[in-house]
């Protein structure tokens, strides 16, 4: 609770400085609206924000689920089959040199203006951190455990399932945390390139019409999504890993 209170104080000071800047400089509302104007826009445009927010939230969540599932399957395959590791790992690493954002127009072309292209974008962004995190975790099994499993007559598949996978779960959850943080970026980039709905679409639209207060309101809603998602993933990780010594991750979201 104390962490939350401190965060609120910091936020209040920043908002005060922002409002002060607007008052002192007298910048017009279409260049830099103050926090009060943004709050007012948020209230006034609530139904609009809700409608577009729901689109983006759906894209983020579906992308997250798809990316985590695909990434986990890839990591398990890489860890289980040495041949997969030799043939696919270099490709996987090189593929990360391609800026995913450059693919966004192509995805829109292939999958259309609807949600599918945005979900695909989010999946692409999430896939790599999840794969590498889980694969690293699977590779770093305590050699003593592997020796013990061998003397007990365990098959490689049984060792993977009963020892290596549970031991890799902390690494997996840090991968999912990263994924939760980048998933909204994927969805919004997809919406910028071409869409008719979503917070990214709303931002472009508001920007073009000089409705900067609405643009800020949309950014704020997106930020709230990101924070809520991060907190939810943290809570899930904690439930899934009750055996891990409970060290607080950095940041006061659970404080």
């Amino acid at each position: 609770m104390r962490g939350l209170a401190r965060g609120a104080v910091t936020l209040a000071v920043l908002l005060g400085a922002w409002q002060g800047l607007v008052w002192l400089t007298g910048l017009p509302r279409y260049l830099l609206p103050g926090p009060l104007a943004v709050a007012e826009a948020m209230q006034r445009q609530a139904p609009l924000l809700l409608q577009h927010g729901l689109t983006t939230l759906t894209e983020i969540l579906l992308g997250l689920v798809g990316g985590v599932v695909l990434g986990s399957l890839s990591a398990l395959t890489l860890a289980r089959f040495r041949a997969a590791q030799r043939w696919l790992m270099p490709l996987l690493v090189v593929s990360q040199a391609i800026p995913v954002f450059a693919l966004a127009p192509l995805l829109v072309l292939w999958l259309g203006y609807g949600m599918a292209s945005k979900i695909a974008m989010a999946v692409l962004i999430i896939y790599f951190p999840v794969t590498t995190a889980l694969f690293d975790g699977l590779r770093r099994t305590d050699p003593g455990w592997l020796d013990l499993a061998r003397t007990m007559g365990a098959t490689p598949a049984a060792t993977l399932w009963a020892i290596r996978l549970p031991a890799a779960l902390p690494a997996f959850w840090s991968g999912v945390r990263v994924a939760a943080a980048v998933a909204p970026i994927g969805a919004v980039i997809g919406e910028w390139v071409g869409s008719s709905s979503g917070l990214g679409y709303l931002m472009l639209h508001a920007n073009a019409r000089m409705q900067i207060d609405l643009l800020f309101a949309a950014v704020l809603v997106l930020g709230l999504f990101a924070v809520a998602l991060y907190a939810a993933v943290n809570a899930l990780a904690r439930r899934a890993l009750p055996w891990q010594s409970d060290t607080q991750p950095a940041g006061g979201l659970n404080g």
Partner: protein
Amino acid sequence: MTDVLLRSGARPVPPPVAALPVTVSSARLTYGGTVLFSDLTLTLEAGRTTCLLGPSGVGKTTLLRVLAGLADPEPPTRVEAGDGRPLGGRIAYMAQQDLLLPWLSVLDNALLGDRLRRRKPDADRVERAIALLARVGLAGRERDRPASLSGGQRQRVALARTLMEDKPLVLMDEPFSALDALTRLRLQETAAETLAGRTVLMVTHDPLEALRIGDRLHVMTGRPAAIGPALEPPGTAPRRVDDPALLALQAELLRRLAA
């Protein structure tokens, strides 16, 4: 607290199969261009505890790993069990680290072998695991997680897990060396009592530990390493730490180690 010099009275856990003599002969292994040992022979007598002592890095652990099937020896190494059948799948292994899985309860850790062989433990196995945990002094702790146990208690779970394996040969690699002195003495007692009647090979660097629980003590020295003749302390394990005969033999062992 019981006096560690007294017997704690744990009954031995009867081995499920007839004790098995095991011989490793003409063993040869090179590591990074260095010959660790060559033409090495060690006999583990049926139903007795053989202790292998020696300075660090002499190859004791490597020899144990050869027996465990965890290290690949070079020809003409031969590992032979008394009944002529291969040794693979018939050993239980206990290491210096307890190797408990932190996400499993104490009971599930004791039953790890079943889990790894994809066999759901039946009521008999569970009952036996609970009895074994009680035998090593952990009654009532079955549902706890390893993190809530002390180092000595964790190694007791590892001992119960080793006994649960019901294998004719037990291999122990410095199983108590990470424990404090008093805990180590207590655990040596429990181990000697529960393992009585089984064929055991224990690698250790502690002469007193070997004298307390070993029936036959070998010293391994040199490079390439050679194994000296067996030293057989009188009486039955676990021997008392203040036994004068033990202290005399300890001097003899230290002399052989330094040679």
